[in-house]
């Protein structure tokens, strides 16, 4: 068993529910191949550094998991078939140093998941009301009032 990390970019044209469904399907691909998901980390909708298939944005999702190395081929094959995905990046954590770093990343991801409400609200409201967000320290409360 080896530790891996997958970054997955889901198409932005899907609705929020469809994105959640496809993320679940992706996680199921990993679990059905004998993988054990440690944590997941949603980076949310982000602007891409360069357009992929004429899409300017994408929904970023990171999955940390442990799996037998032989199963990675199958997982990547399934990802390639999946049309909801713009891009995926698989990272292997093999050496001792990398495994330590993996544990740290997992911990930060778990902490982030423990307080999800604040971050999700911020990412959703940031593009809608950018100017009030910079002026006031609490954008969640102030943004609707400003508009």
């Amino acid at each position, binding site marked *: 068993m080896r530790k891996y990390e997958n970054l997955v970019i889901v198409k932005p044209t899907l609705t929020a529910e469809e994105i959640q469904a496809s993320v679940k399907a992706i996680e199921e691909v990993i679990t059905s191949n004998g993988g054990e998901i440690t944590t997941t980390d949603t980076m949310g909708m982000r602007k891409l*550094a*360069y357009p992929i298939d004429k899409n300017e944005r994408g929904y970023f999702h*990171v999955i940390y998991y442990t799996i037998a190395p032989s199963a990675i081929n199958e997982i990547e094959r399934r990802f390639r078939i999946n049309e909801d995905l713009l*891009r995926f*990046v698989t990272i292997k954590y093999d050496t001792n140093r990398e495994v330590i770093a993996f544990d740290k990343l997992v911990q930060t991801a778990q902490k982030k998941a423990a307080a999800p409400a604040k971050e999700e609200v911020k990412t959703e409201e940031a593009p809608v009301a950018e100017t009030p967000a910079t002026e006031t320290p609490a954008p969640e409360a102030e943004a609707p009032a400003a508009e």
Partner: protein
Amino acid sequence: MAERRKYKKRYCKYCEAKVDFMDYKDVGALRFSLSERYKIMPRRLTGNCKRHQDMISTVIKRARAAALVPYTVTRKQVVTAPFENLK
């Protein structure tokens, strides 16, 4: 010469900070070793040691594949500083 003077004091900043592992998702940390056109800065200008330069180059290439950092930037995009938009 002007560039040379800017980077005259040469020591590895990553060694100083005792960096053991770099995360490709932490885009802000990669900025130091990228030029304003998002090329990987050479070692002779940043003063990175060989070990950390190898680390940063693989990490930057991963970030490029993940569309977190652009491969190339045209002249128009340099002015608008795409890095701020990414965050």
